[in-house]
């Protein structure tokens, strides 16, 4: 739910980083916090347990620039990944404008990824939001690890695509991050769409800003 404030000339949008526990959601925010100029970001708030596991959320406001004289301010949130924190996870999704799903690429975490993705769909639909219609990006994190699953397998499990029935939207949309691949195309059973994806090693910062840029741009474009 983006909010436009004419008095302070700001457009405020909310992005949520979702995904299984220990997947790197907080690490994404920490990297952004460390890299952006201090005058374009606010304080990072972490509601975490003593062992640094996210209990409620992490929060970081970032200004991404000015459009039409309005400051575009993005509020970045992470959710707690652990399964039993679903009540707080659902609260954070309220009013979300864009979602980044941070998947843990390790083969052993495949089941946790799928479970978290299902949980995201469920929580979104409880609010009446349709994940296939809002800006949504998947980040495959920890690509540097030797036990990282191939992208093809991850895509198959987490991003198989959804049917596109509206004829107006049945046109090929190239994936900006992967030349030669499309996020909307015609398959054997008709047209389908997929979320754009990015590969990342969040602890090194690889792919962190690419993901943020992609989803923020997507959010602003839906307003234009």
């Amino acid at each position: 739910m983006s909010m436009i404030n004419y008095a302070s000339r700001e457009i405020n949008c909310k992005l949520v980083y979702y995904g299984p526990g220990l997947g790197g959601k907080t690490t994404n925010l920490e990297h952004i916090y460390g890299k952006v100029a201090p005058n374009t970001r606010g304080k990072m708030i972490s509601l975490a347990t003593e062992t640094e596991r996210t209990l409620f959320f992490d929060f970081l406001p970032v200004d991404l620039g000015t459009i039409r004289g309005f400051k575009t301010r993005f509020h970045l949130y992470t959710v707690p990944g652990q399964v039993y924190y679903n009540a707080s996870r659902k609260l954070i999704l309220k009013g979300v404008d864009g979602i980044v799903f941070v998947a843990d690429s390790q083969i052993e975490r495949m089941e946790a990824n799928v479970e978290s993705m299902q949980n995201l769909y469920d929580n979104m639909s409880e609010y009446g939001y349709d994940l296939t219609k809002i800006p949504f990006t998947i980040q495959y994190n920890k690509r540097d690890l030797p036990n990282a699953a191939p992208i093809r397998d991850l895509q198959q499990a987490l991003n198989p695509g959804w049917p596109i029935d509206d004829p107006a939207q049945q046109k090929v949309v190239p994936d900006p991050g992967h030349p030669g691949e499309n996020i909307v195309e015609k398959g054997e059973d008709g047209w389908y769409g997929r979320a754009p994806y990015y590969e990342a090693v969040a602890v090194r910062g690889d792919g962190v800003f690419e993901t943020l840029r992609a989803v923020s741009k997507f959010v602003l474009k839906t307003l234009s």
Partner: protein
Amino acid sequence: MSGAASWSFNESDYRQIQQYLQGFLRDSNARCALLVDRTGQLVATVGEPPQFDPTAFASLTAADFSANDQLAKMIGEPDFASLVHQGEKESMYLADVAKRVILVVLFDQRATLGLVKLKAKATVEALNHVFQAMFDRVGAGGGDDTKGILHGAEDEIDKLFG
């Protein structure tokens, strides 16, 4: 619904909100009043400028209110329309406005909780009308101003993200 609806407020909404809040601060002796939307975005601040980071404060306020809403449901209440956090010197009073916004009042020993609650009641009612009118305007299709502002700005967005 594909996602949450956007809403916006214009300068005259803002002036009206400020007038109500200034009147409330005068009558209640509270130090500062903030309006925060339920997604954690700061809408307005009136009174003594806060000494803390207002953006972080707003996101925590929304989380606090949402968590308490869920607690209310667990004990069989539809919601808690207001919350009080009482400290030794500084205290906070939070109240729901039109189910979309939270009024946060910061007060110290110069004000009493009873007076703050009493005066807040009328202010919340007045604000309910202002916000309801704002939401109705968007619902009626006459005020989806976010679209107006960024309409045709694709080039500018592309440039911003290089």
